[in-house]
C-alpha cells in the first residue's frame, strides 16, 4: 500500500482495500473448489454408470491384481462423486481438498508409470479408459491437468476460506481473542490501521 498519512475517510478506504484483497482470495478459493470439485464429480459420474469400463480402465494400467483393480474401479467413482459434491458446496473444504489433492498425486503417479512403461492407454480419468493408438496417448496433457488440479487442492488446504461455501455458514468462527479485525468491522474505523 502506497498511501501514507491519515486523511479523512482514510481508515475506511484502507479497510475497503483489505476487504477486496481478501475477497479476491475468497473468489480464487471458489474457483479452485469448482475446478477440482467439478472435475471429480464429472469423472465419478461418468464412471459409476459403467462399472465394467471403470474396472477395465484400472486393469489397463497393469499395476494391480484383478481383485484390487475391481475394488478401485467400483469404489473410486463413489469417492470422486462425494469429494466433488463436498468441494462444490464448500463443506469440509480443507479436508476434501486435501483428499482430492492426494488423489491427483496418485493419478499423476499412475499416468507417469504408464508412460514410463510405454503402455498405450487413455488415462481412464473420465471412464473412456483403456488402450489407445500409441500416437493418441496424451500423458503430458493428462499430467499437467492433474497437476493444475493438485495446485487447486493445495491452495484450498492452505487457505480453505472461499466465497459461497457451506463451511462459512456452518463453522462461522467466533471472534477469536487477540484478533481485533472482526471487531473493527462494525465500528466505523476512525483510526487507520497503518500501512502494515
Amino acid at each position, binding site marked *: 500500500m502506497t498511501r501514507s498519512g491519515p486523511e479523512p475517510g482514510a481508515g475506511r478506504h484502507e479497510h475497503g482495500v483489505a476487504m477486496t484483497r481478501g475477497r479476491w482470495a475468497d473468489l480464487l478459493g471458489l474457483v479452485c473448489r469448482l475446478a477440482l470439485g467439478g472435475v471429480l464429480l464429472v469423472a465419478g459420474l461418468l464412471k459409476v454408470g459403467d462399472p*465394467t469400463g471403470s474396472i477395465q480402465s484400472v486393469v489397463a494400467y497393469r499395476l494391480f491384481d484383478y481383485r484390487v483393480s475391481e475394488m478401485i474401479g467400483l469404489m473410486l467413482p463413489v469417492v470422486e462423486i462425494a469429494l466433488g459434491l463436498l468441494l462444490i458446496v464448500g463443506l469440509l473444504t480443507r479436508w476434501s481438498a486435501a483428499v482430492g489433492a492426494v488423489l491427483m498425486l496418485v493419478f499423476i503417479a499412475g499416468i507417469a508409470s504408464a508412460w514410463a512403461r510405454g503402455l498405450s492407454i487413455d488415462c481412464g480419468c473420465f471412464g473412456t479408459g483403456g488402450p489407445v493408438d500409441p500416437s493418441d496417448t496424451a500423458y503430458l496433457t493428462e499430467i499437467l491437468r492433474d497437476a493444475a488440479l493438485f495446485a487447486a487442492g493445495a491452495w484450498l488446504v492452505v487457505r480453505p476460506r472461499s466465497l459461497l461455501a457451506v463451511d462459512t455458514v*456452518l463453522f462461522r468462527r*467466533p471472534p477469536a481473542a487477540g484478533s481485533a479485525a472482526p471487531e473493527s468491522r462494525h465500528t466505523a474505523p476512525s483510526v487507520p490501521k497503518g500501512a502494515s
Partner: protein
Amino acid sequence: MPRPPAPVPPPPRSGPPVALIGGVVALAVVLVAVVVYVVLRPDPVGTGDNASITGSGSSPSALRDAGGIRVGDAGDDVPAVHIYEDFQCPWCGLLEEVSGEAFTEAALAGDIQLTYTLMSFLDGNLGNDSSLRAANAAMCADEQGAFVDYHATVFAGQPPNEGDGWTDEQLTGFAEDAGVEDIEAFTACVEAGTHNDYVTDMQTRSNQEGVSGSPRVFIDGEELSNEQMQALMSDPTALTGILAGR
C-alpha cells in the same frame, strides 16, 4: 452514501465440531462405496483350463467358464489363437475385414486352434447395448452352426458411425445373410437374450485376464505386438507370416 453497518456476528458459540461432521461424512462415503462394490461387482468367472468344448457352454461352440467361442476344433498340437474383440469396435472391424477369413480358414483347415472372446465393454463407453446383443445373436447363430458366417456378417455390417449400433431387425437381417436357417428360432433367441449371461461373463473374464481393450490377439498365450497387429489389419496374408515366424 454511508455503508450500512456490517451484521454483527452471533455471540461466540461452539458450532458443530468439524471432526464429528467430517467423521460422519467419511463414514457415509465409505458405506456407500462398499454398497456400490457389493451391488455392482461382476460375478467372478472361473478361469480354469478349458482347452476343449465340453458342451456345457451356453451355445454348442462355447467353452466352459466363458472361455470364448471355438471355431473348428483343431486340437492341442497346433498354435492356439485367441482373439478378443467387440462387435462395435472399428479396429476389430478392420481386423476382420482384412484377416478374418485367414483366421477362420486356418481354423477350419485345422492349422490353428481358434477361439473368439466376444467383449461388450463398448456398450458402457458408447451408451448402448449393441455389443451385448450382437454377441448374444452370434451365439444364437452358433446354435444353428452359423457362428463363423454370422460373426463375419456383423463386422461387415458395422454402422458408419461408431456407437449407432444395430436394431434387432438388423441383427436378424445379418442372420438371413449368413444363412441361418431357422430364423424364427434365431429371433426368439435374440429377443430372449438367451446367452446374455455368457456374454457378460466373457467380458468379466477378459478383465480378469487383464485384456483391457480390443482387438487383442494372443498366440499360445503370447500377445501380438503393435506391429503384428498392424500387419494383420493391412495384409490378408500376414497371419501366415506370423505363424511361420514362431
